[in-house]
């Protein structure tokens, strides 16, 4: 009896000391509502932001991205390029899966095979793994990845691929993930339940290798209607919402019970210009055919750029949800070019340039854009057409739903179109390779080069940069390329979209450039 008593006392004392040393853990549940539609619990099925958001709570990546898009160690503690095409990754020791099995390098090798080959997948993760030619397991905690060509963006791309285990993943299908049986990760939260089109519920994983998380449970709800999302926040149904409508931001900010958090995002809105010999619909001032496509003249492109009042677009039309830009990254990001300024709004200079290029009377220009894809897209298209009309061009507006507009962006039929491009890698090379490099299906360059822009000098510079593993050297080359794009007005950047979140004042959130809303970035307010 006495021994039992002592044992009880000992247990109690140790429990108290554990409680005393444990970080302050709140018992509150966290409730998040996002606007995007997540479609599956399979982390490799569909490469879309809401699906990434759902998966990132449960699954870790080899390498993580901080909210500002810089890289951080996750399942890999460190990595280095040992030759031009070989990388070594040193993995974290003592990590376990949610079912208790240990995590090893073999799981990573399995993941990189599975992720690019999910049956019926509408594509997605193949792109992140294009540079992974082979994966070699050196030992349980060391991995060698061979790339077909020098691939400086390999770590940035691997930061997108959630790691799954071989012992569960080998036999699991997408159905098993949706049913919840296969959703075993190493991440900060465990899977609890999934209701399609409605919500995902998580519980904290106390064995996670990272910082202790403050939330016992997390509910991630899907509320696509912006008004309904705001109402859910106001009524206290949820603690955090993403993308509140820009018209409501002032009201949300002025409410003492709420707070708004913002950061410039990764997506640039720009105008793509058709630079083929005959741009459809581009004709003389009275509709007569022209001998040459005026958009091939850099002076004309510059004139179009100078005629745009970016400040007005950002502050009035976008109601502050955008920052004017002359490039496609934000200050502080890798390969942002400080020398490239936002083009000034100067209609007189633009008119002079047009006259100099031989179009004193302007020409006819149809302006295309989507109307349901980006915030304010239809209004921006109209504003562009009006600003160019002021320059003396005969413009017309054609706004289309994304489901049809996306069809014509790839055909080369788009003369002048409003487009958006996110740089998930957080560096300039991704846009340069895909949007401005000469189109070459075999080499996989210029895939989204809607205007068929082609500049051999720029191509050479981009190719060199993207084969340079040294970060400082590559950044210098990329900045040079950004300057070249600006000098030639290869495209017309308009503004960077700002990501917004609104929260109850009981919590704070680290706003992420990559639009994701993650429980690990949300903290109880002090």
């Amino acid at each position: 009896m006495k021994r039992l008593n002592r044992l009880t006392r000992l247990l109690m004392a140790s429990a108290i000391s554990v409680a005393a040393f444990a970080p302050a853990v709140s018992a509150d549940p966290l409730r998040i509502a996002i606007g995007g539609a997540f479609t599956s619990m399979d982390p490799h099925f569909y490469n879309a932001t809401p699906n990434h958001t759902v998966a990132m709570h449960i699954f870790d990546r080899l390498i993580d991205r901080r909210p500002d898009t810089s890289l951080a160690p996750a399942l890999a503690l460190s990595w280095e390029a040992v030759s031009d095409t070989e990388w070594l990754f040193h993995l974290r020791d003592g990590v376990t899966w949610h079912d208790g099995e240990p995590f090893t390098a073999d799981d990573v090798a399995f993941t990189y095979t599975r992720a690019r080959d999910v049956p019926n997948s509408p594509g997605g993760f193949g792109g992140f793994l294009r540079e992974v030619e082979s994966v070699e397991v050196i030992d349980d905690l060391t991995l060698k990845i061979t790339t077909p060509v020098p691939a400086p963006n390999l770590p940035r791309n691997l930061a997108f691929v959630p790691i799954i285990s071989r012992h569960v993943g080998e036999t699991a299908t997408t159905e098993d993930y949706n049913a919840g049986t296969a959703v075993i990760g190493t991440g900060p939260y465990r899977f609890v339940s999934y209701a399609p089109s409605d919500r995902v519920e998580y519980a904290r994983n106390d064995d996670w290798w990272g910082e202790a998380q403050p939330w016992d449970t997390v509910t991630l709800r899907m509320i696509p209607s912006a008004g309904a999302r705001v109402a859910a926040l106001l009524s206290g149904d949820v603690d955090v919402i993403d993308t509140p409508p820009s018209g409501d931001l002032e009201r949300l900010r002025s409410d003492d019970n709420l707070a708004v958090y913002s950061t410039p995002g990764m997506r640039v809105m720009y105008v793509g210009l058709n630079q083929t010999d005959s741009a459809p619909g581009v004709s003389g001032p009275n509709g007569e055919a022209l001998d040459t496509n005026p958009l091939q003249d850099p002076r004309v492109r510059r004139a179009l750029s100078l005629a745009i009042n970016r400040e007005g677009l950002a502050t009035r039309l976008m109601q502050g949800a955008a920052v004017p830009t002359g490039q496609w990254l934000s200050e502080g990001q890798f390969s942002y070019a400080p020398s490239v300024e936002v083009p000034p709004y100067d209609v007189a200079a633009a008119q002079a340039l047009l006259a100099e290029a031989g179009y004193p009377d302007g020409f006819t220009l149809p302006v295309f854009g989507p109307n349901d894809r980006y915030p304010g897209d239809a209004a921006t298209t109209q504003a562009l057409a009006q600003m160019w009309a002021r320059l003396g061009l005969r413009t017309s507006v054609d706004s289309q739903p994304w489901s049809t507009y996306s069809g014509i962006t790839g055909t080369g039929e788009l003369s002048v179109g409003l487009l958006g491009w996110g740089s998930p890698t957080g560096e300039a090379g991704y846009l340069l390779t895909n949007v401005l490099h000469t189109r070459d299906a075999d080499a996989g360059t210029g895939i989204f080069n809607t205007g068929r822009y082609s500049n051999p000098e720029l191509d050479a510079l981009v190719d060199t940069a993207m084969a340079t593993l040294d970060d400082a050297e590559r950044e210098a080359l990329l900045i040079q390329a950004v300057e070249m794009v600006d000098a030639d007005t290869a495209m017309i950047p308009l503004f960077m979209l700002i990501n917004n979140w609104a929260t109850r004042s009981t919590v704070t959130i680290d706003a992420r450039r990559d639009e994701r809303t993650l429980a690990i970035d949300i903290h109880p307010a002090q």
Partner: protein
Amino acid sequence: MISWFGSRLIQALLVMLAMTVIVFIGVNVVGDPVAILIPPDATAAERLRVVQAFGLDRPLWEQYFSFLNGVLHGDLGRSYVYNQPALQVILQRLPATMELAASAMLVAIVIGIPLGLYAGLRPDSPLAKLFMAGSVLGFSLPTFWVGLMLIMIFSVNLGWLPASGRGETVELFGMRWSFLTLDGLSHLALPALNLALFKIALVMRLVRAGVREVLPQDYIRYARARGLREGRVIWVHVLKNILIPVVTIIGLEFGSVIAFSIVTETIFAWPGMGKLIIDSINVLDRPVMVAYLMMIVVIFVVINLLVDLAYTLLDPRVRLAARGKS
């Protein structure tokens, strides 16, 4: 009766076959789902793989016949974005929509018929005039606005009911229903009321007009002259005779509530089929769009069949006509 039922069934099948052609072609000429779904930086090879996986490389007629063949085997295709059979994707969301539609119709009937009766029997009383004025609002206020107002009043300001989403569910007949839990009912109340407002006004006006039309007729006067209780006159002689148009409308409205409660489902983030079809159209998830429209056709056909059956119960003349034909 049986041959009547048989001919209705054949009609229904022909309607559905015609719908498959219209829907399939209509859906397949809009946009390019691959361009929407694949990442913009996908290479030609990656793109081709998706095109082949979806079967979009085959000519349209071939796609159509393999779809028809699938339908005969109970397979309506596989969703591009959910990677599940399209029918399963829809059926998962069916209970949510059904319980929302059924509660809205129930509210409409329980409130609409008594109010309409009252307004018809006492057309000059101030209360009846108030009901009729109210019904104008029920007709004319847009659903999305009323929905937002309901949320503002009952969730944000008063804090009585949750603003959106579906509550706790329990499993019954293999599907998850929320109307059996208190939490579920509290989530159901506002969207159901929002959907019901228009129907209440509609049912009320129909009933009132019917009553006004029937009351001066001879058989009502004779019934009264026979000394029947007023209650019996109203419930048996008046109500039964005005129910045919009401049942027709309720049937049609029930179908459209199931198929097109999109606005309410969007505002209240209700995870039903209406929200699904909008999501699917936005990403051109063709199998789900086709399966959804097919399903709606089936629902309308079934409801109309039930409405016809209800006629035979309510109106002896329909019953006799059907028998005469057979």
